[in-house]
């Protein structure tokens, strides 16, 4: 039981440390999310402006054409893992597949350069977004994990350790009680023995005068028998 308590305390310390490490990480990530969100605002503004440039250069709406010609994603993400105190945080990594270009003909008539520039701008913007998304995913997962870990820490701190301590206390008190009982019984037994001895003593004491009386009687009777040779004076 003591071992169990010790185990619970060690586990509690370890979990607490883990929770602290995660919280530190968590705060760092929230700070970075905040920064990245602001950066995203700027980047998207620039990107939107370059799109406006394209619209101006091409001289009409190209949205429809682009939407129709989108077939295969050129810009994809892959996920890899990062290990933070036993928690796997996925991280997105963007990459562009080479050799497929859905918009080869966009802006062929005019504004091709602007279209190209706009594509680059947007690609950069999307990279920022991907970065932000991976931060955010880490945030969501960490949030959940921290909750679980804290719950465990609290469970150990407020339920398991007190319960074990109570059990130990109960066992101790029970043992003490047994001890006391045993002691009391011993005392009682020795008391009884003493009393018995005293009684026996008393009995013996009580018996011996009787004996004396008996012997005295016997003596008298012996006397009675013994004074045959005495002369009877009165007769």
């Amino acid at each position: 039981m003591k071992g169990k308590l010790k185990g619970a305390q060690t586990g509690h310390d370890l979990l607490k440390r883990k929770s602290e490490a995660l919280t530190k990480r968590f705060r760092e990530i929230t700070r970075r999310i905040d920064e990245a969100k602001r950066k995203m605002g700027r980047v998207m503004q620039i990107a939107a402006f370059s799109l406006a440039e394209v619209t101006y250069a091409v001289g009409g709406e190209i949205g429809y054409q682009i939407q129709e010609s989108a077939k295969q994603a050129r810009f994809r993400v892959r996920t890899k893992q990062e290990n933070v105190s036993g928690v796997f945080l996925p991280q997105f990594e963007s990459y562009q597949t080479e050799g497929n270009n859905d918009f080869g003909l966009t802006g062929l008539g005019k504004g091709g350069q602007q279209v190209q520039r706009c594509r680059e701008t947007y690609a950069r913007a999307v990279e920022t977004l991907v970065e932000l998304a991976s931060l955010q995913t880490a945030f969501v997962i960490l949030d959940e994990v921290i909750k679980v870990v804290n719950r465990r820490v609290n469970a150990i701190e407020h339920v398991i350790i007190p319960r074990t301590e109570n059990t130990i206390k109960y066992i101790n008190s029970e043992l003490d009680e047994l001890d006391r009982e045993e002691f009391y019984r011993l005392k009682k037994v020795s008391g009884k023995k003493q009393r018995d001895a005293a009684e026996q003593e008393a009995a013996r004491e009580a018996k011996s005068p009787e004996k004396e009386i008996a012997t005295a009687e016997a003596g008298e009777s012996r006397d009675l028998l013994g004074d045959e040779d005495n002369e009877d004076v009165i007769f």
Partner: protein
Amino acid sequence: MAAPASAYKDRQFLAVIGDEDTVTGLLLAGVGHVSPPPDNQKNFLVVDTKTENSAIEAAFDRFTHERKDIAILLINQHIAERIRHRVETYTAAFPSLLEIPSKDHPYDPEKDSVLKRVRRLFGE
């Protein structure tokens, strides 16, 4: 307690719900993907003032729950505002949901679901 690798191994696309300019720009960057026939599912949705909220919600559900190949869902903030309750209740890690500003609607950190959670966590 981390999500199993299978939960995000196949996720490699970005999905977009946005206004025309945003979608056009992101498609130019090359995020657009149309799955092969016969289902022909696009990974983007263009929303304008005529688009019904139910259509946005359906697309949101499709991107977040049905499709298993989407890693990140980008949604314009003013559109997210229209289905705010759905965005608020969405807490899964994959796909991660990102609110982005649009040309006509500058980014407002006050409305962002994630930043709201951040603030709530730090007790502000």
